[in-house]
């Protein structure tokens, strides 16, 4: 079909765009690298050389993993947003809706305030583990509270409202913790809630990479039943979709991707909301296209935002959450106005 070929072309273009932004993102930053610097750093590392210069080590150990982490986290948030909007059949939904990101933020806040008292020390892993556990537990809490014996038409709506309520609760918990915390901790909590990729290393790339793969593969496999859900829960059942099972699978994929991504970067708002909308404005609501497209565009957008965060105040950095909103909102608003979308 013609439409499918255009979708494929669009995915190829998104992929090219993603590669181009990644190239820019590894090149520029607090220090700019020439292509020659980059080539010698990579070939030196590959040759197993131990006497890399400081600049070369910065490139290999900080710059490259950070660029890759950007792609992975952006993909997780973009796909999470697409899945949630399809599942809730609602355009204002973002991936953190079912309590995942506010729970993760609460877990991180607990770590900042009480982390020093912990008997178990996981080193650099303590914060991500605390955040991820917070995200998973709060999502589980939302599921448990929203679950009733009568699974009917309203079950998804109940989940959505329970998510809103639990989010409000965790936000007030975070507010309380940052209020009682002393200054460096209080600032850390606020900073974490705006997101940053400055902690990126190869370990975080591996973990978020695994979450991306294990989330994206089943998400693509469930694109067709999610399409059926576009015309309603009952209609999807009539079309042979096991909606109850679909709901749990999709929510599990979303928690995996969003909790793990958020654990390493803090709360990055807006990417998960706008990426699916931008793609839907361009190509319509077919989830078979949207899921792959949002992985590519989410990564691209986050790379651009991170590049801006790194170079605009260099050598200092902006929190990335500020950039995603400042850059994303105008693009999003102009697209909304230019098309007959949501009509």
């Amino acid at each position: 079909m013609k439409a499918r070929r255009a979708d494929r072309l669009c995915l190829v273009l998104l992929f090219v765009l993603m590669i181009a932004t990644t190239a820019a993102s590894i090149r520029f930053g607090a220090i700019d690298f020439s292509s020659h610097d980059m080539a010698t750093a990579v070939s030196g590392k590959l040759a197993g050389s131990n006497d890399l210069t400081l600049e070369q080590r910065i490139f290999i150990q900080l710059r490259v993993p950070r660029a890759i982490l950007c792609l992975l986290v952006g993909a997780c948030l973009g796909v999470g947003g697409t899945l949630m909007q399809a599942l809730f059949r609602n355009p204002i939904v973002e991936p953190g809706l079912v309590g995942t990101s506010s729970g993760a933020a609460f877990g991180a806040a607990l770590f900042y305030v009480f982390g020093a008292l912990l008997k178990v020390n996981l080193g650099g892993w303590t914060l991500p583990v605390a955040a991820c556990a917070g995200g998973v537990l709060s999502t589980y809490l939302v599921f448990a509270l929203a679950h009733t014996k009568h699974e009917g038409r309203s079950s998804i709506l109940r989940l959505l409202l329970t998510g809103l309520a639990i989010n409000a609760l965790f936000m007030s918990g975070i507010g309380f913790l940052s209020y009682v915390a002393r200054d460096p901790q209080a600032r850390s909590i606020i900073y974490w809630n705006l997101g940053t990729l400055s902690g990126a290393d190869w370990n975080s790339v591996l973990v978020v990479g695994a979450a991306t793969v294990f989330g994206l593969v089943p998400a693509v496999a469930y694109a067709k039943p999610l399409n059926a859900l576009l015309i309603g829960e009952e209609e999807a059942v009539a079309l042979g979709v096991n909606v109850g099972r679909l709901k749990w699978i999709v929510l599990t994929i979303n928690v995996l991707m969003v909790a793990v991504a958020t654990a390493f970067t803090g709360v990055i708002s807006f990417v998960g909301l706008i990426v699916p909308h931008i793609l839907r404005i361009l190509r319509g609501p077919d989830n078979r296209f949207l899921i792959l497209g949002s992985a590519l565009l989410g990564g691209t957008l986050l790379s651009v935002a991170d590049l801006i965060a790194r170079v605009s105040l260099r050598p200092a950095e902006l929190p990335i959450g500020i950039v995603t909103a400042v850059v994303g909102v105008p693009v999003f608003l102009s697209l909304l106005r230019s098309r007959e979308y949501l009509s």
Partner: protein
Amino acid sequence: MLSASGLEFCASGRALIDGVTATFDPGRLHLIVGPNGAGKSTLVKLLTRLLRPHSGMVEYDGSDISSWSERQLARRRAVLSQAVEVAFSMPVRELVMMGRYPHFGARPGAGDLHICEEVMRFFEVEVMADRDYGTLSGGEKQRVQFARVLAQIWRPIEGSARYLFLDEPLTFLDIRHQIDFMNKVRSFASHPDVVVVGVVHDLSLAARFSDRLLLLHEGRILADGSPAEVLREEYLRTAFQVCPVLLTNPDTGEQHVVFESAELDVGP
């Protein structure tokens, strides 16, 4: 053949369906009528397994559907409900193709594409195939939805009947489109392997198009038979609590039901 036996369904402690037993034969058009709250939609949902009964059983071709897989069921039965809300709009062609979802894996085959073209022609929506669903009028939307639903069971299935359910499909159609729609349903119902069960509000329309009528009242079947057998004054009084006037068109012999404006005095 579709058979329901001893169906019961309650919600919030109230019996919505209270012991319904009926069989529905292929090649005939069955319409369910009754007042608001009689349990018409609930009955259709039980017959299609969109709801599961608290007791009783629904059988398609003599086989209990409670253990069928979602997909197995979706290849044999299709359901048109009264208003389908599409969360994010899409081209008409893609919406109609959704009817083929139970029949293909990742990608539609040539046969699926062909069936979509055929149903779109049947419902005269092929001219709007590439238009956005959100830009259509209410009547056009309903025709597109019906095309989607029929695409699901357009081709006969070996060794099995096909089941079509219509839950108040006429709600958003004007009178010309109501008649047109019912004619299309009739022509589809004339296939010897097709069982059609529908819910409609308009008794005159029901009388004119159905082979068999079921009058539902308080979750039970009050009357069941040909339109002439069911549309009788005493049944209609009991079910609708108003005084019916039964008229026959002298030219065509068609039956019409109108109601007196006075409310029936049902006593203390």
